[in-house]
C-alpha cells in the first residue's frame, strides 16, 4: 500500500489549495472594495497587485524546488500540502528530518518508511508551525496595539533573538555532522554511529561554500533577486556532489 501517494492526501491537498485561493480572492475583493470607499484609485491598487504578482514568481520557484527534496521522504502530496499552507521551505525539511532521525529504523527500512513514523512526522510538521494562526485567532485583535509597540520598541533585539533561537538548532545539527565527519575520517567512533559521516561533512562544507559564493556575488553585483535562489541552489549543488562523495567512501 503506497500510503504516501494515495488518493486521500491528493484530495486533501486539492481542498487546501482551493481553500487558500478562496481566502486570498475573498480578502482581495474586500480590500479592493474598501480601497474604492476610501478613495484609492484603481490604478494604484492595480499597480500593487501587478507588482506583487511579478515579485512573487521568483521566490515561488525555490519553494517548488524544495518540494522535490521533501517529497522523497514525505511523498509528493503531503509535501505539496505543507508548502501550500503556513509552511516554509527550510522548516519542513528540518522537521521531517527530526522525526526520521528519531525513528530507530535501518537504512533499508527507511526507504519504505513505516506508516506510524510517517504519521508521526505529519503531526510534528503540522503542530510545529501552527502557533501563528492560533495566536491570530485569540490574540491579534486584543493585542494589536501592544504588538506594534513591542515590535517597534526593540527591533534590533527581536532580530538577534530569532537568530539566537535558530543558532541552537544550527549548533546541534551542524555540530553533529562536523563531529560525525571528523570521527569518521579519524576512525575514532563505531562505524555504525558515523555512517556516511565523511560524505555528509563534505556535503555540508560544499553547501556552505556555495552559499558563501552566492553571498559574495550578491554583494558584488547587488542582484537582490538572487537571494531567493541562494539556499535551494546551494543545497541542490551540494546534493549533486554528494553523489560523488558517497561513491568515494
Amino acid at each position, binding site marked *: 500500500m503506497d500510503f504516501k501517494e494515495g488518493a486521500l492526501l491528493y484530495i486533501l491537498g486539492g481542498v487546501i489549495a482551493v481553500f487558500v485561493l478562496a481566502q486570498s*480572492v475573498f480578502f482581495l475583493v474586500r480590500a479592493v472594495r474598501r480601497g474604492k470607499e476610501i478613495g484609492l484609485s484603481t490604478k494604484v491598487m492595480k499597480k500593487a497587485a501587478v507588482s506583487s504578482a511579478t515579485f512573487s514568481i521568483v521566490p515561488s520557484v525555490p519553494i517548488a524546488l524544495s518540494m522535490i527534496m521533501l517529497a*522523497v521522504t514525505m511523498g509528493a502530496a503531503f509535501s505539496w500540502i505543507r508548502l501550500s499552507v503556513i509552511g516554509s521551505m527550510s522548516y519542513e525539511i528540518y522537521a521531517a528530518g527530526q522525526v526520521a532521525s528519531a525513528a530507530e529504523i535501518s537504512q533499508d527500512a527507511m526507504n519504505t518508511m513505516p506508516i506510524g513514523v510517517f504519521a508521526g512526522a505529519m503531526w510534528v510538521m503540522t503542530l510545529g508551525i501552527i502557533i501563528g494562526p492560533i*495566536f491570530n485567532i485569540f490574540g491579534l485583535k486584543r493585542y*494589536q*496595539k501592544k504588538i506594534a509597540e513591542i515590535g517597534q520598541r526593540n527591533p534590533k533585539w527581536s532580530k538577534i533573538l530569532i537568530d539566537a533561537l535558530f543558532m541552537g538548532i544550527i549548533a546541534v545539527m551542524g555540530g553533529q555532522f562536523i563531529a560525525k565527519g571528523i570521527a569518521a575520517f579519524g576512525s575514532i567512533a563505531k562505524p555504525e554511529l558515523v555512517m556516511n559521516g565523511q560524505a555528509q561533512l563534505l556535503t555540508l562544507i560544499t553547501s556552505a561554500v556555495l552559499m558563501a559564493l552566492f553571498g559574495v556575488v550578491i554583494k558584488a553585483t547587488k542582484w537582490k533577486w538572487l537571494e*531567493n535562489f541562494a539556499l535551494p541552489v546551494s543545497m541542490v549543488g551540494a546534493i549533486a556532489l554528494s553523489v560523488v562523495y558517497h561513491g568515494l567512501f
Partner: protein
Amino acid sequence: MSKTKGYMLNEYQQMTHRIGRIWTGCALALTVSVPLLFCLIYGVTPEWESFWKGIISVVPMYWAIGLIEIFNYSPMLGSGGTYLAFVTGNLMNMKVPAAKVAMDKAGVSAASEEGEVLSTIAVAVSSIVTTLILVVALLFVVPINQWILSDDLLRSVFDLKIGYVIPALFGALGVVFLAKSWKIAILPLVLMIAVFLLIPAVYDISGILIPVMSVLSVLIARWMFNRGKV
C-alpha cells in the same frame, strides 16, 4: 467604533478581525485535519517515540520564533495582511517584501488605512501566485520523485535520516548565521562539536539538546546585547 486596549477600530477593521478569525480557524482545522484524517482512515497511530523526539526538537523553537514573527511582521502587514499571510506562510521571503514593495510604490505607511488595503491586496495576490505555481510544480515533482525512488543511490542521497539533504540544508544555513552573528554562534557550535566527539551516545538524544542549546544561545546573545557587543 470599538475600543481594544485603547486602540480605536473602525467598522471595516472590526469586520476584518471577525472575518480573519473565521478564515484562520477554518485554515487551522483544515491543516490539522490532514494528519488526523490520515490516521483515522488508515487506522494508524503515530510511532510515539519518534513523534515525541520530533516534538521536543521542533515545537519549542518554532513556537517561539512564530510568536516573534507576529510581533515583527504584523505591524508591517496590517490586520488583513497578517491573517492571510500567517495562513499562507513564507513570510520572510515573500509576503512581507511583497507588501512592503506595494506600499512603498504608493508612498503610504503600513499604519494608514491605504497601507492596510494595499498590503492585503499584495499578500492576497502573492498567495494566489504561489498556490498556482505549486499546483503546476506538483505535476513535475511526481515523476521526478518516482525516478529518484526507483534508483537505490538517489534514494539514499535524498534520505532525510542518513542521506545528504539535511547536511546540505545546515551547511547553507550555518554559513549565513555564522557570517551574520558569529559571536553568538561560535560558542554553542564548538561546544556541540566537542560533546558529539567526546560522548558519541549523545547522537541518539540530539533532538533533546536543541531546545537546551537554543536557550543557551539566547542567554549568550542577551549577555552580549546588554554589553553592546552584538
